[in-house]
């Protein structure tokens, strides 16, 4: 059972990913520490976040070695969340706009 279903990988890969996650977290922290602002700040935050998330899911959670059926069943449904985020962003923009008119008119 353990041989057919267990995940066996050399320990060095875990140390490598651990180190990479440390470096990426340090980079994320530096974004704040160096007071980067605007689109540079936001894009760097998202890039480091996605890299960290990708390393955790693919290596630590072994998704890179799972069969395609499992990876698709877990990863594809999260696409629906992007739709939710998009819809809510439009809604929030509209709320902000109407609040501006309402409070502006006093």
């Amino acid at each position, binding site marked *: *059972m*353990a041989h*057919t*279903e*267990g*995940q*066996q*990988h050399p*320990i060095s890969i*875990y*140390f490598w*990913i*651990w180190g990479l*996650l*440390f470096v990426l*977290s340090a980079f*994320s*922290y530096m*974004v*704040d*520490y160096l007071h980067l602002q605007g689109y540079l*700040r*936001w894009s760097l*935050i*998202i890039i*480091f*976040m996605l890299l*960290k*998330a990708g390393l*955790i*899911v693919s*290596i*630590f*959670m*072994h998704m890179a070695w*799972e*069969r395609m*059926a*499992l990876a698709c*069943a*877990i990863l594809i*449904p*999260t696409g629906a*969340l992007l739709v*939710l*985020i998009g819809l*809510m*962003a439009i*809604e*929030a*923009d509209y*709320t*902000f706009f109407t*609040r*501006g008119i309402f*409070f502006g008119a006093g």
Partner: protein
Amino acid sequence: MPEGMQGIVADWSSDQRAFKKVPWGKAMMWIFLLSDTFIFTCFLTSYMTVRMSTTVPWPNPSEVFALTIAGHHIPLILIAIMTFILISSSGTMAMAVKFGYEKNKKMTAILLVVTALFGATFVGMQAFEWTKLIVEEGVRPWGNPLGAAQFGSSFFMITGFHGFHVSVGVIFLIITAIKVIRGDLDNERPGFLTGRKGKYEIVEIMGLYWHFVDLVWVFIFAFFYLW
């Protein structure tokens, strides 16, 4: 072919298996984590919505979570340390899984306990952070002196739910460590709750949950603390 209720059971439990090369419990943990992803995304999305739509300035997290250590004012330092602690716990967890499949009882147990200690440290630091915010800064779920009222409700809801996940994880890490030390996984002793035979795959299933908690923190760190 059986009909009625018997038929339903027979059809759904017939000799089919979608997720090959994955133990049953591991597939179920993945599906649970998918549902948890939806919950956390709902929280983070509602946070995005209130932050985008408020006309009151949002408190600057970099300043709110700053600490003065040895006379130096360092922005966001507590959260940075918490991030490194949680990542370290993920590292030790990944190695516990590896030693588990090698049936190395001693190393698996040690690494599980170290992971639990990191997790407990994280929760402790979060308790410190909450206390500082509530007592010193006067942040409440319905308002705060720093800016937009929604800051408090988003903060307590999101970090509270995440901290709860970490706490539950610590408890299950200790339970898993006890099972390893007691030899349940070598002797296939049935579990106290499910009665399923003890196997080293439970260490990997535990690991999936723990890495997920770390994964959620990556998103909270990016969107709540850094944005």
